[in-house]
């Protein structure tokens, strides 16, 4: 980390020199001295990391300069160093945003030193957080987050682009494993809120009794065990995005409370009397058909229309043309990288097998299948034998394309051969056909 730039604002030359000497003992501290509030304010462009501020300055009061510093940069820690041993003043200044209040006495220097160490630790953590957010943001550029170049996924990219450019509520639907959360994250990290928190909540996983306190927070003493105040997920996502996954799993009582939060854009903590204003972008997701749930009376109609916003319907993997291969190749590469294995490739037979499978578990299932295939394969090539699809599920694919009766026969025999580990006799018995039929097909490379 670069030097910590510290402003000492102190009109007394003697005390200023003492502080300067003490702080300059640390070679990482770059100290700038100012004797008036005005001088300090005109030099704020230097972006100090910390300001130590004498409470009594000739040209201004501690309050006044603290407010001005905070209005310029609310994140800069300001340590008040004062001869004033008045608790009331200290409390007021801390309320005003001062980081610490240190009385000028013989321990001032060691207290200041400790305070600066804590601030430096915080600065390091903040810097790491910013770097990590940038890294995550890079990871979630649309093309990196969602692989594929099929027509249907290109349409999804276009919708995501529009969603990222505004604060509109987004409702993401799609089968399980289609990447609803990835889409939500990609929208967040490509929006103007990208440097603020992304908070994901699985509505189906929160116990009914805890849902309210989890989402809206609670005040100290609100219920047995509420020993401290806690902010809820909505407040946690302040200025960022809250992602409410499995929204259809909410009960009616919670639905009405969520509706109020969305309408009023404010939350009231459990056990609290005042409300807290919210600036949060909402993205919801469900694998259910919400309109159907409304018709069945399981989901409030008013909430449905509030949440609908910009709907993004993610296609199942089986409808994404050759995206399955693009994604599979990506997973192979990533898995090899993570496990320090030599790069492997999907051979033609493996690719064909992946293209004919229906992937009821969508991308999540593809990932699992591909990772297993990498582990099972010998050498650099992954063949069809390494691709372990779920044979029961594969029947969905049987009628995916229109085929001739002969092609259907071949597909059925292929399916049974896979299911029964290429046991020709058993397959012949199950399908009530001659084993020679199967042998002939093998010889002709039909199966």
């Amino acid at each position: 980390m670069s030097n910590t730039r510290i402003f000492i604002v102190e009109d007394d030359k003697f005390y200023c020199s003492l502080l300067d000497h003490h702080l300059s003992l640390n070679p990482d501290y770059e100290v700038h001295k100012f004797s008036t509030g005005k001088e300090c304010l005109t030099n704020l462009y230097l972006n100090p990391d910390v300001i130590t501020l004498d409470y009594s300055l000739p040209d201004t009061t501690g309050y006044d300069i603290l407010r001005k510093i905070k209005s310029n940069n609310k994140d800069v820690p300001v340590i008040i160093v004062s001869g004033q041993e008045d608790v009331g003043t200290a409390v007021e200044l801390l309320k005003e945003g001062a980081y610490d209040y240190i009385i000028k006495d013989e321990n001032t220097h060691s207290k200041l030193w400790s305070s600066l160490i804590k601030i430096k630790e915080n600065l390091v953590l903040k810097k790491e957080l910013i770097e990590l957010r940038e890294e995550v943001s890079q990871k979630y550029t649309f093309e990196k987050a969602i692989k594929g170049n099929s027509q249907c996924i290109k349409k999804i990219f276009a919708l995501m682009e529009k969603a990222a450019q505004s604060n509109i509520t987004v409702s993401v639907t799609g089968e399980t494993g289609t990447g609803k959360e990835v889409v939500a994250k990609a929208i967040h990290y490509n929006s103007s809120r990208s440097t603020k928190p992304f908070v994901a909540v699985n509505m189906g996983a929160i116990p009914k009794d805890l849902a309210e306190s989890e989402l809206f927070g609670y005040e100290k003493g609100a219920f047995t065990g509420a020993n401290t105040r806690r902010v809820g997920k909505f407040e946690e996502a302040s200025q960022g995005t809250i992602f409410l996954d499995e929204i259809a799993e909410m009960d009616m009582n919670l639905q009405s409370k969520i509706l109020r939060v969305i309408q009023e854009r404010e939350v009231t903590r459990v056990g609290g009397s005042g409300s807290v204003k919210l600036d949060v972008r909402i993205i919801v997701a469900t694998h259910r058909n919400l309109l159907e749930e409304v018709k069945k009376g399981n989901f409030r109609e008013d909430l449905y229309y509030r949440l609908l916003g910009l709907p993004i319907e993610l296609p199942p993997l089986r409808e994404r043309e050759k995206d399955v291969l693009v994604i599979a190749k990506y997973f192979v590469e990533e898995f090899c990288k993570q496990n320090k294995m030599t790069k492997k490739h999907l051979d033609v037979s493996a690719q064909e097998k992946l293209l004919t499978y229906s992937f009821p578990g969508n991308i999540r299932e593809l990932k699992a299948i591909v990772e297993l295939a990498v582990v099972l394969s010998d050498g650099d090539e992954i063949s069809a034998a390494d691709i372990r699809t779920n044979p029961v599920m594969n029947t969905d694919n049987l009628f995916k394309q229109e085929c001739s009766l002969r092609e259907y026969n071949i597909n059925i025999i292929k399916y049974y051969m896979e299911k029964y580990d290429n046991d020709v006799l058993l397959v012949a018995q199950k399908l009530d056909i001659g084993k020679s039929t199967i042998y002939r097909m093998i010889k002709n490379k039909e199966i």
Partner: protein
Amino acid sequence: MKKSSDQEPLFSTDKLYSLSKGNEEFVKKMIKLFIETVPENIKKMKDSLDSQDFKTLKNVAHTMKPNLDMFDIKCLYLPIRKVEENAVNPENIDALKDDVDLVVNTLDKVMKELAKLC
């Protein structure tokens, strides 16, 4: 440690030595700075008392207080605080004047002694 006529320590540079980890050059620099800045503050103190500008008097006392503590001038520990406190709303100006005189006279002696160390 310097002693006053009644053998009480008048001031001490121990805190400065401790703070600077025994850096004599720094201690001398701080003594010089103290000698440079105190007369100005003494003048302000006297002038503000004469003109009954108690706000300035309070501010000067407030500024001087930690510096006097740094030299461990024990006999001024209370008087400088009394000046700062009583200047807010002086009820007994004579008592305030006595305290100011004590501060001024003691500092005069301290500075003479300190000058010998440079």
